[in-house]
Every structure is written in structure tokens, then in C-alpha cells.
């Protein structure tokens, strides 16, 4: 830290995109209707695809396990609705690839009671039993990363989790999912924190919230019982503070080592909606069936925060909320890191935190790309202090090895801050994404050769 630390309570660099949260942050979470056919891809998380355990024609109950985890880094998938398995075949996914999946036809008018499994008792369960419970509930990071939560929570031998950080930052513009969850599911969050603290052995829990959600911060503060080792920390609004590394720096002024994980600095970070899900599901041994999603953007008529069953086709979602005539792009996630969707037949998955629809007005027709004028805006924006300008030039020359070895390419987590500020409209993140995958492939080739 320098002599004058002007960055108190927040990380260095970063950007301030317009927040655009006003239109939905006051709207309570509403239950979304069941689609007639639910489409469940088996690849909803990072890790091995789930293994289907049902057969075509089988009738299943809501909450029943349809596919089991096929290993440690994998999670099961539960039926979000009672119905009949119509078809087991490849289904479209957001990556554009077809992946194994299940078509589930909902019963038109049956009671949608939820099947329950073995409850995990907070007082008697061991940390490993809690982790098993989290895996059995099919829980993955709901902030968008969709990494199996039980893997992340497992503290490796020789490491120690001192502080648990609950991530309620939600720095993506437009999205208000976590904001509503914090306002409406505080009990679940606090229960989830108890499970998480026990599973990780953390002595202290800090809930990190940005200053544009002070109502949620105050609500949680009121709900925390005296004597609980849980506190709320409000930090200034800045993108990409929701990234684990940035949040840890903002709250505790620690830096996660390059190539390392938060546990290397004795911290585990869990998204707030994931925490709420754990607190709600584990006491009943249920599996995850639905999630809160913000549907917003200038192209959406009935904007709001909806509780939507996993597997609901995107087309059905947009039909229900209504879209404008001139829609142009649909994003899964926020506008900074979200993925543009080309096919509306893909479905809502566990990692979908928001759907943002832009019309032709917001989507600029291929902005003119100028040469890099070395203005340094990207250098001032990059939260991990890379030199995107230089990396961009190296990428043009296909100097991938130099990018990785001399300029720390692999530390880039693709937050998009550099592209956002670039006056020359250079698609820097796109370059880096491509370069990273090439570097990874090359590394694989060399390890295989050995």
C-alpha cells in the first residue's frame, strides 16, 4: 500500500458503467408460470456433465433426481416440475453446441408438491456431510460462473478458511437479482451462512454489498442476531467488484496470488443467491428447481425479477414478458460479461442471473475500429493492472507466448473493462479470450508430448 491510499474500501482501477438498475430493483420477486415443456441440458455447470438416470416415458415428480453427478466436480439435476420425460436427446446450449439433455412435459394441473430427500441437520452434520448435501442439492455458483459450490467450499489440506465472504455486490449493470434476494430472502441467507461457516470452519462472515443497495444492507444488518459472527460491509459502487479477487481486495485489502484461489489468502467467497439457496434447500434435503432472474433491458415490456423454473425455454420466457418490435440482441447475464444468444430455443440454466434485451437503438452497428492511440484508458481500467493495449498489439502479431509469459495474459478474467473504455473500439476482450484458449491448447499439447 502506498503512502496515500486513495482506494479505501475498494480495489484500484475499474470502471463506472451506467447502473440501469432503477427499473427493476423495486419490483418484488414474482413466480413465473411453468412452461409446457421444460428442456434441461446436462451441462449447466463447470465440470463433468450430469448422468441421466431416467428413461423416456417415465413420470417424474417435482424435485426428483433426473441426472446424477458423474464425479466429484459435477452435480445432479432435479426435476423442476412434475411431468413425463418426453425425450432424451441432444438439446441446444448457449455455447452453440448441442449437449445431452432431457425434454420434460409438465403435467397440466397436478399439485406441484416438492419431493424431499434427506435433510441436513445443521447441528449434527459434519462439514463433509454439509458439502455432500450441497452437491446433492445440485448447487452451483448462481452468480453466473456455475462452478459446483461444494468443490469451492472444500478447504484443501494445510489451508485454513479464516473469513467467509458473501458476495452481494452484483456489479453488472441492469441486474437486480441479488438485490431482491437480499431484501426478500434474508432468513435463507443467514441460514445458508450457518451451513457455510460450519462447512468451511470460517470464524467470521462478511456480507459485501455495493452502496447502491443500502436498503438491502440495512435490512440484513437488522436481521443478523446479536452475537452472530456475521457483519455487513458496504463498499463504493464500481465494476468489476463482484469478481472474487476484487471483492477480497475491497473488503480486506488482501490480494489473491496470481494463478491462486481465495483460499490462498484464507478466504472463501460465495454468491449471496447461492447462499440463500443452501439455507433454503439443505434443511429439507431438496434439490434446486428454480432461481431468481432479472429480465430487463429496453427491449422488454414486463421487466421484473422472476422466480423461473430451471429449464424454461428462453422463447417461452420472452413470450411471457413480451418484447418490443425492434429487438436486436438478447443476453444471458449482464451487458458486461453476458453472452449474446442466437437461438431462443436454449433454456434457463442454473447460472443464468439475468436476461437483458437490447433493441436496435442500443446495439451500435459495428462501431468503427481505429488503431490503438495508446491513450492508456485500458491501463487505467484494468483491475488487475495488465497492459491491455500492449496485449492487444501482441495478439495482432499472434505473439501468444509473449502475451502469457511477459504480460500475464492468463491473469485476465475477461471483465471487459478495457473494451468498455477503449475509444478505438478495439475488441480487446475478444482478442484475449481467443489468445487464452490458444495458450491453453498449446500447453496441453506440450504436456501431452511429455
Amino acid at each position: 500500500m502506498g503512502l496515500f491510499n486513495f482506494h479505501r474500501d475498494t480495489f484500484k482501477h475499474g470502471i463506472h458503467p451506467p447502473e440501469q438498475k432503477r427499473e427493476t430493483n423495486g419490483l418484488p420477486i414474482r413466480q413465473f408460470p411453468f412452461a409446457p415443456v421444460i428442456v434441461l441440458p446436462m451441462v449447466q455447470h463447470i465440470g463433468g456433465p450430469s448422468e441421466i438416470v431416467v428413461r423416456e416415458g417415465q413420470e417424474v415428480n417435482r424435485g426428483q433426481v433426473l441426472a446424477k453427478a458423474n464425479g466429484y466436480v459435477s452435480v445432479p439435476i432435479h426435476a423442476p416440475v412434475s411431468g413425463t420425460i418426453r425425450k432424451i436427446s441432444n438439446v441446444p446450449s448457449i455455447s452453440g453446441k448441442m449437449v445431452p439433455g432431457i425434454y420434460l412435459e409438465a403435467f397440466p394441473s397436478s399439485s406441484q408438491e416438492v419431493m424431499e430427500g434427506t435433510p441436513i441437520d445443521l447441528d449434527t452434520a459434519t462439514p463433509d456431510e454439509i458439502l455432500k448435501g450441497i452437491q446433492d442439492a445440485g448447487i452451483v455458483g448462481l452468480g453466473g460462473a456455475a462452478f459446483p459450490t461444494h468443490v469451492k467450499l472444500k478447504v484443501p489440506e494445510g489451508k485454513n478458511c479464516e473469513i467467509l465472504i458473501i458476495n452481494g455486490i452484483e456489479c453488472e449493470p441492469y441486474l437486480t437479482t441479488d438485490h431482491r434476494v437480499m431484501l426478500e430472502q434474508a432468513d435463507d441467507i443467514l441460514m445458508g451462512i450457518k451451513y457455510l461457516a460450519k462447512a468451511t470452519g470460517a470464524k467470521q462472515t462478511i456480507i459485501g454489498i455495493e452502496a447502491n443497495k443500502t436498503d438491502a444492507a440495512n435490512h440484513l444488518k437488522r436481521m443478523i442476531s446479536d452475537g452472530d459472527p456475521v457483519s455487513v460491509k458496504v463498499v463504493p459502487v464500481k465494476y468489476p467488484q463482484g469478481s472474487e479477487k476484487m471483492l477480497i481486495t475491497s473488503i480486506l485489502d488482501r490480494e489473491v496470488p496470481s494463478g491462486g484461489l481465495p483460499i490462498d489468502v484464507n478466504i472463501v467467497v460465495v454468491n449471496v443467491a447461492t447462499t440463500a439457496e443452501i439455507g433454503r434447500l439443505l434443511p429439507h434435503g431438496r434439490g434446486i428447481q428454480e432461481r431468481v432472474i432479472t429480465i430487463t433491458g429496453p427491449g422488454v415490456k414486463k421487466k421484473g425479477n422472476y422466480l423461473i423454473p430451471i429449464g424454461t425455454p428462453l422463447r417461452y420466457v420472452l413470450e411471457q414478458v413480451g418484447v418490443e418490435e425492434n429487438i436486436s440482441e438478447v443476453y444471458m447475464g449482464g451487458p458486461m460479461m453476458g453472452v449474446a444468444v442466437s437461438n431462443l430455443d436454449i433454456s434457463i440454466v442454473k447460472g443464468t442471473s439475468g436476461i437483458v434485451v437490447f433493441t436496435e437503438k442500443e446495439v451500435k452497428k459495428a462501431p468503427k475500429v481505429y488503431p490503438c492511440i495508446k491513450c492508456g484508458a485500458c491501463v487505467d481500467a484494468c483491475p488487475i493492472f495488465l497492459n491491455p493495449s500492449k496485449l492487444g498489439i501482441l495478439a495482432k502479431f499472434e505473439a501468444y507466448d509473449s502475451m502469457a509469459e511477459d504480460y500475464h495474459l492468463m491473469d485476465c478474467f475477461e471483465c471487459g473493462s478495457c473494451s468498455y473504455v477503449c475509444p478505438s473500439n478495439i475488441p480487446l476482450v475478444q482478442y484475449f479470450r481467443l489468445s487464452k484458449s490458444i495458450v491453453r491448447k498449446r500447453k496441453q499439447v506440450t504436456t501431452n508430448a511429455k
Partner: protein
Amino acid sequence: MLNRTLNISTSPHITKGISTDVIMRNVVWALLPVAAFAVYAFGINALLVLITSVISCVLTEHYLCKFSKKESTITDWSAVITGLLLGLTLPPNFPLWMTFVGGVISMALGKFVFGGLGYNVFNPALVGRAVLQAAFPVAITTWSPAFLANRFSSISSSTLTFPFMEPSVDGMSGATPLAAFKFDQVATDASDLALGLISGSTGETCSLLILLGGIYLVARKMMNWRIPVSVLGTAFVFSGILYLVDNEVFPSPFFMLFSGGLMLGAVFMATDMVASPITPLGVWIYGGIIGLLVIVIRIWGGLPEGVMYAILLANAISPHIDNVIRPRVYGTSKSLKPS
């Protein structure tokens, strides 16, 4: 509506919306008051020099692009900046044909041969001026006094010199404050310097308007404030130390700051984004080098003014500064070693 073909693009899907041409245009706006004062102070001659140099730069860029079968890049406005800057560094009654040649050289040799916008090693306007200084040493050091009574009614004979002819000196020439100090040991009043009531290059005389333009660009985050601060700061401190050592021999730091092309150079020339380092520490070093060199050349060099050479030299060092000075990457303990 849901049957429409959706567009796809890569994230991020929003941008700040300040594009390169907008930045360049704003630099032009920031230079206009300086140019306007130049015309007010030096009259019709200055106006002709400025117009000629802008036209020359824009035309050169346009035709070079056309001849090399590329899309014309004049719409990014950077040629206009070069034209204005070149004009502002020339004496007000500089022959127009020489001005035109300077513009062609700036764009062709200073910018185009390197690959155009974004690739120039040196500030293009200064490349043009350096060539003019070498080719026409007399014309480029012939200054007319400011606020002549007939400045709006008569065009100086030197301005309209025919190409390849030597300009006639029309007797009314005024020494710049730096030349007056260097060769005649006459100091000029600091307030006259700040307000531009002196003779000098077309646009370098009114330090206050130059600073105002700089403040505008810094406020709009279109200029790296560290460059003018480090250039002026170093020049001030270094000349201040010399002044304290012997105030008989060395001029006051205020005189150094507000005389000659230092203000224009520090605010509008050294800040050429392309030719300056990209990291904050690199920029401080770069600015420091310019500030030191300016004072060294002014005091110990053969020329009264050293801003142009100081900046050109620092431009040349700039890529090497970027290669050596690399910021510490998040999560690493020390900065990366240079390759």
C-alpha cells in the same frame, strides 16, 4: 418479434461511447482559443499560416491514403490537430509555401511512413517543424512583434514569398523573450509572458489560454494530466535550483515556465498519446526527461529554445520506457522483468 434473426456480438455489449475521433475533435476545440488569440495578436499573417498548415496536413493525409489505396483517415481529425500544432509553432509571418512544405513533411515523414495514426514514433507536427528549422533557419527565427497596428490590414511580404525564394526581411522584427535573454541578457516581465504580450511563435505566446485548453481536456479525461505536470514541474524545479544557485546568470523559474514554447509543448505536444508512454510511472519519467532537457538546452545549448528537441528525444525514448517500466500485476509480488 421472436422470429426475428437476433444479432450476436461479444461482450461487453456496452461501451463508454467516447471514440477516438471524439477525443481528437475535442483536442481541436481546446486548441481553437489558442489559435484565436494568435490571430488576434499577430493578425492576418497568423491566420494564413494556420489555415495553410491545416489544409496542407489534411490534404497530405488524404492523398497519401488514396495513393496507397486505403480508406482516407482524415475523418479521425488527427490531421487537423497536427496542422494546428504545426501552424502554432511557426513564426506568424512565416512564408506560406514553407508552411505548406512543413505540413506535407509532418504527415508524410512524421506519421504516414510509420503506419499512420497510432504508429507514429514522434509527434508529427514536431517532425515537420524540425525539418523546417533545418531547412529554413533564418525564416523560422524571424519574429514579428505582437499587436502591430496594421496587423489586420496588411499581409507581411515574407508571408507571400514565392516558393523557393528567400523571404525579404521587412525590418519589423522582434526578439522573443528567450532570445532576448540568451543573447542580450534582457528579462521580460512575467505578466506579459502569461498574457502573451510578447513576440514568439504564432501560438506559444498566451500561456493562460494554453493552460485553459489543457484543463478542459484533463477534465474530460482526454489528456494525461501527468505529462504537463511532470514536464512543467521538472522544468520549474530544475531552473529554480539554478536560480537559487546564481540568480545573476540564470533566469527565474517563472520566466522559464511562461516563455517560449514550453507551455504549448508541455500541454499539447508532449501529450501526444501515441508518442508518450502508457503507464503512470513511465509518464512521470518521460515528462521529467522533457523538463530537464528543455532547461539544459535553453541554458547550455546553442539555441535559445529547446522544447522541440526535448520532446522529440523523449518521444524516441518512450517505447523503451514502456518496455522497462511495467506495472506490478495484481497478485504478484514484483513487477515483471523486461523481455
